[in-house]
């Protein structure tokens, strides 16, 4: 794999953490892209912002804690993490307490962000 190829990928996470298997897959894709040293940014959109809720405890469910997985993002070389400000406000999300620091964007800024990437992977 040629790391200098430099195709910029934006991973859009649109699903809540435990309602579907796509949520886990989207985070795994983001982590894999970073692990292979490809430029990648992350955007939580709509219900995807619910992955940023603090205090996720899924021990009783017997599934992977996605909040904890997200808190490992700084260990990977993910350039930037962004969040849909409208959706975060709709769910009264405390972004300061989120498992990973995310920069809030309004719809115009999100559209702008989308337009600056080569590939878009939406989950």
């Amino acid at each position, binding site marked *: 794999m040629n790391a200098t190829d430099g195709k910029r990928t934006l991973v859009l996470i*649109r699903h809540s953490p435990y309602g579907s298997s796509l949520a886990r897959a989207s985070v795994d894709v983001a982590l894999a892209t970073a692990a292979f040293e490809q430029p990648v940014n992350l955007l939580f959109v709509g*219900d995807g912002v619910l992955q940023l809720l603090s205090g996720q405890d899924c021990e009783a469910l017997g599934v992977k804690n996605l909040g904890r997985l997200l808190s490992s993002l700084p260990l990977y070389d993910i350039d930037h993490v962004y969040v849909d400000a409208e959706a975060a406000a709709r769910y009264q999300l405390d972004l300061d307490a989120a498992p990973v620091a995310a920069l809030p964007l309004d719809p115009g800024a*999100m559209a702008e962000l*989308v*337009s600056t990437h*080569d590939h878009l992977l939406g989950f």
Partner: protein
Amino acid sequence: MTLHTLNASPASAAFADCLRLLTAGDALLLMGDGVYAALAGCSHRAELDTSGAMLYVLRDDAAAAGVLDRVDGVTVVDIDGFVTLSEQYARQLAWF
């Protein structure tokens, strides 16, 4: 500019989120349950019209849904038209 593809009902969160990111200069291809958003005269269609994006609907899916003759103002494309759109727009984003 971005080619958006929507494969979800106009009542879905995917539709609402897609609409917020859709800008003039983008294209939106409606497929699967997304074809119902093309229905002329309906409120969802009006929302798409105001986005300024170019609107397309996948022929076979629209035909299956029974809406093919009710999508005035939306361009009907077959699979080759879909491929052509993917050539013309630098990136694609799937909403579902």
